[in-house]
């Protein structure tokens, strides 16, 4: 095989560009404040872990992460229940209005979230739902459900009819068929959905800054967006905060790379 330096070089340059910000973030987080001021780019003389200690114990980052986790669990869970029930009926039952429901639900994937903030903000102000977990969970669940329904309907339709017929012969109700026959066969698309939807909710900033304004309810993304302002010029400390905030998704990505890539490609269709 011919040795081909040019493609290698091009890929290596691209990979370096993709990697530099992450490396800068980690290296700077481990650098002493004085050293960073003198030398912005070099390798640290000695690793300083104090910034991580400060981030973990002196900032509300755990609270923010807990808030994000509550929203992810609540909205992804709610959306999955709603979407599984509806997708099962749409894929496996005959009823009037079925196609219309699927068409409308699918079309809603196209609505940019930003156009919903005005009416929802006014409504939530009136109902006192601003800065409540429940209110935000409802919005996130609504935003991620159309895609979930679309994906699950496609998958449920591909399951063999004989399996369902056999369960019907045994006298199972539709709910039992869904729980005991259909869902156990759908673990792969369910995992994809959990990843796409969790990533969307965890990474969102727009809804988080509007609907969770209380300091006690801030999500991790809303928290770090104001981080740099609060720790002005303490760049190593800021970078330690970013590293902690990025850690969960980085670890998940490196562990479940294949599911992530598949999930994100499916999610891009949104």
């Amino acid at each position, binding site marked *: 095989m011919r040795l*081909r330096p040019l493609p*290698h070089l*091009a*890929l290596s340059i*691209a*990979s370096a*560009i*993709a*990697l530099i*910000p*992450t490396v*800068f973030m980690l290296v700077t987080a481990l650098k002493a404040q004085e050293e960073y001021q003198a030398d*912005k*780019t070099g390798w640290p003389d000695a690793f300083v872990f104090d910034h991580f200690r400060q981030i973990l114990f002196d900032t509300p980052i755990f609270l923010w992460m807990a808030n994000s986790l509550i929203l992810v669990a609540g909205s992804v869970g709610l959306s999955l229940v*709603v979407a599984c*029930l*509806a997708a099962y*009926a*749409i894929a496996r*039952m*005959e009823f009037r209005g079925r196609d219309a429901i699927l068409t*409308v*639900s699918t079309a809603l994937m*196209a*609505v*940019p*979230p*930003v*156009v*919903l*903030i*005005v*009416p*929802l*903000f006014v409504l939530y102000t*009136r109902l006192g739902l601003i800065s409540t977990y429940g209110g935000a969970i409802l919005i996130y*669940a*609504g*935003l991620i*459900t159309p895609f979930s329904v679309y994906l699950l309907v496609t998958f449920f339709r591909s399951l063999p009819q004989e399996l369902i017929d056999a369960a019907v012969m045994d006298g199972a*109700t539709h709910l039992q068929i869904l729980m005991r026959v259909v869902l156990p066969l759908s673990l792969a698309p369910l995992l994809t959905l959990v990843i796409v939807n969790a990533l969307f909710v*965890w*990474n969102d*900033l*727009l809804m988080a800054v509007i609907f969770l304004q209380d300091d006690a309810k801030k999500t991790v*993304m809303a928290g*770090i*967006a104001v981080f*740099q302002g609060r720790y002005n010029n303490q*760049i190593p400390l*800021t970078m330690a905060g*970013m590293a902690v*905030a990025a850690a969960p*998704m*980085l670890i998940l*990505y490196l562990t479940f790379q294949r599911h992530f*890539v598949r999930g*994100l*490609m499916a999610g*891009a269709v949104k």
Partner: protein
Amino acid sequence: MRRNSPLVPYLFVLPLICLLAFVFGLSLIRLVEFSFKQVRGIDGPWIGLRNYELVLGQPLFWESVIHNLKLFLTIPVMVMVALVLALLLYERLPGWRIHRTILFLPYILAIPIIAVVMKEMFQFSGPVNAVLTALSLDFMVLDWIGSADVALWTVMGLIVWRETALGVILFLSRLMALDESLIEAARLDGASWRQRAWHVLIPQMRGVIEFFVVISAITMLSAVFAYVYVIGGGRGGPGTATMVIELYIFNALIRTSLPGIAAAVSVLLFAVSLLLIWALFRVRRREEA
């Protein structure tokens, strides 16, 4: 309840209908209503087209629109870079899997995180300018974040850096699904890498490239809030240099408490996105056909 009761399917779809009606249905109706009202607090009197007249007569609105349109310039850059990288990865050179893992990394990092990191890297006295000075490239030393002439271009660079990764993965997965025999035939005929890419591979990727162009266009129009919110210090700064439509809506709603104005802009944005979605559906239908 008996299994074959005609009500059963409706019980299964009822939660979906309630959720979507609450988040989307009710909201879209109220949105259009608000855009014709002078809303103070939670409601207000009908004022016809006044909101639209105010918005369309305001220079800041048009400046935001122009900024969003400028962001569209990132799309050809992203398509070209992603195409070259996907084609290089497809060659399956030794170590290509590691490159694939790294090249997709930018898309995993959340926008607010990476925007904060980049903002520090591109400070006037930050590491990027330090490296440029060390390389004697002083003419390239710019105030990337703080100068009104440069800030939007910095945002565009950041968008290209992150969103290209999605293009790479989409294009690569399309390439992986291609029929290998044609490519082998071209290779045996002695076609060079460039010839194979240009005459064999790229023509078969037309659908996925169009798809990426349309979803990128939707992103540039209605999903860049997190980038400019962080880079522009929450206000689209410096001055109004990184103001975009989403931030305009956000400001009108939250900072100046003018929901009617925000609603009018949202309706306009929604109308334009519908046009883009229509294009997306056409592209996808053609690809399926």
